[in-house]
C-alpha cells in the first residue's frame, strides 16, 4: 500500500495540484498554508489563544460553515422548487412525501435557524472580549451588516414554502413597513406628502409595496423574495464575508491582550 500511495503522490497529476510534499515537517506545514487556495484564508501561524475554543467559541467559523451548508442545500433545493403559486406549496409537499432527498429541506431549515443563533453568539463573544475596539471597529460594522443580512436571508426564505405559517409570518413582519414614517401609508407624516390634494403615499406606492411588490403578500412577493433569497442577499453576504475575513487578518488576526 505504501508504494501505491507513494506512486500517487509522485504522479504528475497529484503534483500538479499539490506543489509540495505532505505537511509533516515545519517547512511544508508553512508552505501548505501559502500555496493552497482554501487554506490561504488563514495565516501561517497564530497566537494559541486565537484558536482556543474557550476564547472564540468557534462561533464565527460555525456561522460561516452553516452559510456554506445553506448554500449547498439551497442550490439542491432549487432543483426541486418552483416559486409560483401553482407549485411552491406542492413542491415542498413533495419534498416531504415523495422526494428521496427530501431531508435537504430539514437540513436547510434547521441550518438557517442555527445560523441566526450562531451569528448572535458570535456577536456576543466579540462584544464580551472587546474585540470591536481599535483597530477592529470597521470589521464590527461589517459584522453588523452581516447580522442584518442573515436575518433578511432567513426572513425571505420563510415565505417560500407558501403555507399558512409562511404567508402570515411575512404578513405580520412586512406590515411594519406600512408604518414607516413618511414612506408607509399608515406611517406618521405620510398624509403630509400630497401634491395638489393627491396622496403620494398610498398602499400601492409605499415602503411595504416596495418590499412585497403588491398590496398584500401574493405571487409578486413570492417571486421577489425568491430572487432576494437565492441570489441578491447571498451574493451580498459572500462579498461582505470576503471583506470580513480579509479584515480579520489585516487588523492583526484574532484579538488578544497587547
Amino acid at each position, binding site marked *: 500500500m505504501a508504494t501505491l500511495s507513494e506512486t500517487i503522490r509522485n504522479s504528475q497529476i497529484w503534483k500538479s495540484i499539490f506543489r509540495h510534499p505532505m505537511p509533516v515537517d515545519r517547512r511544508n506545514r508553512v508552505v501548505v498554508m501559502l500555496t493552497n487556495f482554501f487554506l490561504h484564508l488563514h495565516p501561517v501561524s497564530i497566537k494559541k489563544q486565537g484558536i482556543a475554543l474557550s476564547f472564540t467559541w468557534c462561533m464565527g467559523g460555525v456561522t460561516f*460553515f452553516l452559510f456554506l451548508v445553506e448554500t449547498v442545500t439551497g442550490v439542491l433545493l432549487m432543483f426541486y422548487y418552483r416559486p409560483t403559486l401553482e407549485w411552491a406549496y406542492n413542491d415542498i409537499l413533495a419534498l416531504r412525501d415523495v422526494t428521496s432527498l427530501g431531508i435537504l429541506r430539514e437540513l436547510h431549515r434547521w441550518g438557517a435557524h442555527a445560523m441566526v443563533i450562531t451569528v448572535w453568539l458570535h456577536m456576543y463573544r466579540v462584544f464580551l472580549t472587546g474585540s470591536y475596539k481599535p483597530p477592529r471597529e470597521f470589521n464590527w460594522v461589517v459584522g453588523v451588516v452581516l447580522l442584518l443580512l442573515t436575518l433578511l436571508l432567513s426572513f425571505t426564505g420563510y415565505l417560500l414554502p407558501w403555507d399558512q405559517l409562511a404567508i402570515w409570518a411575512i404578513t405580520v413582519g412586512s406590515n411594519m413597513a406600512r408604518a414607516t414614517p413618511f414612506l408607509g401609508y399608515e406611517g406618521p407624516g405620510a398624509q403630509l406628502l400630497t401634491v395638489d390634494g393627491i396622496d403620494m403615499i398610498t398602499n400601492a406606492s409605499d415602503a411595504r409595496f416596495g418590499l412585497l411588490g403588491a398590496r398584500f403578500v401574493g405571487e409578486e412577493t413570492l417571486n421577489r423574495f425568491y430572487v432576494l433569497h437565492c441570489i441578491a442577499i447571498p451574493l451580498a453576504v459572500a462579498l461582505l464575508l470576503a471583506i470580513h475575513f480579509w479584515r480579520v487578518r489585516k487588523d492583526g488576526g484574532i484579538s488578544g491582550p497587547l
Partner: protein
Amino acid sequence: MHGHVSEPEFLEQISGFLGVYYLTLATMNGIAAYYLWQSKRSAVLFRVGKNQFTTATLWLAVSVVFLFLAPIAMSGDPQWMRLASIPQPLRDLADFLMGPVVYTVGTMVVLLLMFLAREFFVKPVVAWGLLNLSLLLMGLSITDVDFAAIVTKPDNVPIVGLVFLLGFFTWLATYRAVENDKRKERGEPSLEALNNEKILVWPDLVYTELICMVALTAFLLLWAIGLQAPLEEPASSVKTPNPSKAPWYFLGLQEMLVYFDPWMAGVVLPSLVIFGLMAIPFLDYNKAGNGYYTIKERMFAYLTFQFGFLVLWITLIVMGTFLRGPNWNFFGVYETWDTHKVEALNNVDLSEYFWIYLLGQARPQAPAGSATATKLAFILYREAPGIIALLLYFIVVPPALVLYSKFFRRLFAHMGFIRYMVMANLLLMMALLPIKMIFRWSPLNMKYFIAIPEYLTNL
C-alpha cells in the same frame, strides 16, 4: 392545542423520547462524576464522620436519580408518569402567578442577582447544578400537554436550544471574566495573555476546523432526521391564524407592539438597534478589555450591552414565542391557549390625564371646519404635556447627567459634545421601552405619551 389527543395517548407518545432524555442526563452526570473522580478535581462538600461527600458523589447521586426517572418516564403509564411530573396544583399556581410584569421583572431580577453574585454562580459546581435543575424542570414539565405543545413546536425547538446555549456561553464568558478580574487584582496576566505563544495553523487550526465541520454535519443530520420541518395548510389569505406570529427572531419586535405603535416597534427602534450596534466601537473609548474577558474593566459597556441583548432582545423573544397566545394574550407555560380569553384594556393617554383629570376640563379641540394649520396647532396644544416631557427627556436629561453625575461628567469630557449626545440619546431611546412598560403596568395604565391618531403619530 393538542386538543384531539387524549392525555394518556399524549403521554404514550412522548414516553420514548422522555426515557432517552433522562438516560442522557444520567449519562451526562455519570461522566461528570467519573471525570471529577479520575482527574482528582473532586472537591469535598461536607463530611459525615469519616465519609467524605464530594462533588463526584453528588453528580453520581444525581445520575442515579435520573436513572430512576428514566423507566418511570418510559412506562408511558399515566399513574407512574404523574410521579415524573410537576404536580397540577403547582402548575396552576405558576400559571396564575405568571404575567408579563412578573415575567419581565422576574427575569431582570434573576439576571441582576446572578450578575451581583457572579463569583458564586460561575463556580462549576453551581453552574452544573443549575443546568441539571433546569433540565429536570424541562423534563418534569414536558408531560404537560400545553407545555409540550408550545416547546416542541418544530420552529420553537431552536429557541429552547438558544436559551441553553446562551446560558452556557454566558457562564463561560463570566467564568473567564471573573478569573481575569481576580488575576488583574493580584497583578497577574490574564488567561488570554498566558496563551500568547505562536503556533502553526497546520495542523492545529486546520484540524480543529475539520473536526468541527464533521461534528456539525453529524449534528445537523441528526437534527434533520429527528425533527421534521413544519409545513402547515396551504397559504390562504382569508384564513388568518390566531395568533399570527412573525418568525421567531423578530418576536421581540412584535412583543414591543404591545407598548409601541408599529412605526416605533417595527421601524424606528429596529433601525436604531442596528445603528446603535454599529456605533458601539466609536462610542466606547475605553481601551481596556480588548482581547480578553473582563467585567470590572468595562462595567458600563458590559452592563449596557447585557441589558440590551439579554434583557430587551432575548427575554422578549422568549416571551413572544412561548408565552403569547391567541390575540397576543399572555399565557402561562402550562395554560391552554384559549381563543376566548379576554383581557380588559382600558388604557389612558397622558393628554387625557392632564386635561381631564388634572385640569378638569375637556381636551382642546379645534372648532369645526377650521383650516388644517389651525387643527394642527390645536393638536400640538392638546398634546403639549407629552411633547414637552419628551423634549425634556431627550434634551435635558443628557446635560443633567453631566452636571450631577461624576461618571457621566467623565464620559462627556472624553467624548466631546456630539459623541456624548449621540450616546446619551441612544441610551435614552433604549430606556424608552422599559419606561413605557412601567407606565403601562402602573395603576396609571398609560398608553401614549403623545397621542395624535389624526396623523398616525402615537408614542
